[in-house]
């Protein structure tokens, strides 16, 4: 007698697993404009590459003769897959079953996701939609875990120092899935379908008396602006496209280097627009994103965190096909000053680059830490100092371009150890911008003048002239004063010089990456 009956049952279970929460559950998901977890995975990965693990995990119901009546799959789907031909681990809750709140087998698969990424040292993608535990417990009464059980969060923490982790919020994400969502190097939320909540409206109303909808509590207008997620996307498909883009810049793990892609943008391209992109009028703001895009490989800039800490611009790009981190100031937003949230955003970004050995290019237009009562209340100096010290301990190569202002303690965050430093003719630097400094340092002289306003302006002009970049060039305080149009050719030569040394940085970074 063969094993045919068991094989038939295995096949029957596999078919039932693909039914997820059943036709009605899937129809409800689609009615709300959302994809199922299996459709999400198909949309994310290379066609036909999903290689599932634990499809047979779940719960079965048997008849009186021991025959299989029904099989309910675990409500977490996980497996290997490929994105642009590179292997990854991908997993996510199945909302059509129990609203994604973990079933016993679902919880096991969910916990196993990070272990798999660590074991195989592969990038991890988590697609979240679901709530955390329920007071009813996951699947009835069970024994609590033993004291010797490893911490649930240890592997989550370890992945962040080992492999790239990207996550997406695609529906309502609460509790544990929300915690895992943000425990990533890059997170994106679908603006049309996702909310992120520590606790949902019913719990909030009972505890706090606040009556708010899911969207008011944790929609994209809240969380793309406070740093909870890095980016927003119009819908689920756009969110998944961002994850593919993000991963394309990163290595598989900390023991390998980011892939270098073919580049048809000439290394010696000198864009004429750079000559006058910084206005001669010192107070006139300019478009830093345009500047960045004119210098890095064409169409390679992928911005992260545009909606918060907005005086700082962070993102990944390529120079001659080599991934680089790009950090720049946005003078259009609070003069480009370092705010508390801008400092936190920059710090996390610096750690991303350090963790994955990505050279950093800083385009500096930093007037200093944000000032005023709001800034003091936000503990700007503590967050700012942490960013400055994080930079000081990095090992990655830095190239810092003094585009315009470079002032105070805050400017130090933009120059890593042994940074290759180039200054544009528009560069100004010093302990503080003349506008503020003159009023303080020369207050008696100004007060005694017949026309104090005119005196102040005269002193400002005199001091601004003294901040000319030429003395810095003479003192070798910068590697070179350059024509702004030369920036790309010089940075391409720099990348060519630092690339051979990147493999010496391989391995875990000295400081941990935390959310």
């Amino acid at each position, binding site marked *: 007698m063969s094993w045919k009956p068991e094989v038939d049952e295995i096949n029957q279970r596999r078919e039932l697993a693909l039914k997820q929460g059943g036709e009605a559950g899937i129809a409800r998901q689609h009615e709300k404009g959302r994809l199922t977890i299996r459709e999400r995975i198909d949309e994310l990965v290379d066609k036909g590459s999903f290689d599932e693990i634990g499809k047979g995990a779940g719960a079965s119901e048997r008849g009186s003769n021991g025959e299989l009546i029904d099989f309910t799959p675990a409500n977490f789907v996980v497996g290997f897959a490929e994105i642009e031909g590179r292997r990854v681990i991908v997993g996510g809750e199945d909302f059509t079953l129990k609203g994604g709140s973990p079933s016993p087998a679902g919880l096991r698969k969910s916990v196993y996701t990070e272990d798999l990424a660590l074991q195989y040292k592969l990038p991890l993608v988590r697609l979240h939609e679901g709530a955390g535990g329920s007071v009813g417990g996951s699947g009835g009464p069970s024994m609590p875990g033993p004291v010797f059980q490893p911490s649930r969060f240890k592997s989550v923490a370890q992945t962040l120092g080992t492999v790239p982790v990207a996550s997406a919020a695609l529906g309502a994400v609460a509790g544990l899935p929300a915690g895992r969502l943000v425990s990533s190097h890059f997170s994106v939320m679908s603006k049309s379908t996702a909310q992120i909540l520590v606790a949902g409206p019913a719990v909030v109303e009972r505890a706090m008396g606040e009556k708010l909808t899911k969207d008011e509590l944790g929609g994209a207008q809240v969380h793309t602006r406070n740093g909870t997620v890095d980016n927003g996307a119009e819908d689920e498909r756009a969110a998944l496209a961002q994850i593919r883009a993000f991963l394309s810049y990163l290595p598989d793990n900390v023991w390998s280097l980011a892939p270098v892609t073919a580049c048809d943008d000439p290394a010696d391209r000198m864009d004429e627009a750079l000559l006058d992109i910084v206005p001669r009028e010192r*107070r006139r703001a300019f478009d830093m994103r345009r500047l960045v895009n004119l210098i890095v490989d064409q169409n390679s800039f992928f911005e992260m965190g545009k909606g918060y800490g*907005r005086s700082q611009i962070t993102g990944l790009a390529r120079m001659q096909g080599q991934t680089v981190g790009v950090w720049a100031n946005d*003078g*259009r937003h*609070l*003069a480009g000053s370092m705010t508390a949230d801008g400092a936190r955003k920059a710090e996390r970004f610096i750690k991303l680059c350090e963790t994955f050995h990505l050279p950093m290019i800083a385009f500096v237009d930093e007037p200093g830490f944000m000032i005023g009562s709001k800034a003091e209340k936000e503990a700007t100096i503590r967050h700012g100092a942490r960013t400055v010290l994080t930079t000081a301990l990095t090992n990655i190569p830095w190239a810092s371009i003094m585009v315009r202002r470079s002032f105070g303690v805050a400017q130090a965050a933009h120059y890593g150890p042994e940074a290759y430093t180039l200054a544009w003719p528009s560069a100004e630097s010093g302990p503080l911008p003349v506008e503020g400094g003159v009023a303080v340092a020369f207050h008696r002289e100004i007060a005694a003048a017949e026309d104090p306003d005119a005196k102040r302006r005269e002193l400002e002009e005199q001091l601004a002239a003294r901040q000319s970049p030429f003395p810095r060039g003479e003192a070798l305080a910068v590697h070179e004063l350059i024509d702004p149009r030369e920036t790309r050719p010089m940075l391409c030569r720099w990348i060519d010089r630092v690339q051979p040394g990147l493999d010496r940085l391989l391995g875990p970074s000295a400081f941990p990456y935390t959310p």
Partner: protein
Amino acid sequence: MATHTIELETGGSVWKVLVKAGDTVSEGQELFILEVMKMEVPYTSPASGTVKEVSLAEGDVVEEDQVAAVIEG
């Protein structure tokens, strides 16, 4: 014909308003300039067309996300 709504990226005060409703503008032309933290922040037209509306006056104190102008082009 598309309608472009220009929302403010930051709060601040309105330093100069350079166009008015009915004006013809070209893409990249400066529409108004805010003053934010002593920096002059120009806003330019995203398209060539006609100014349908400008809801700022010089000296106004403005807030992030406020609709500042509408361009049809």
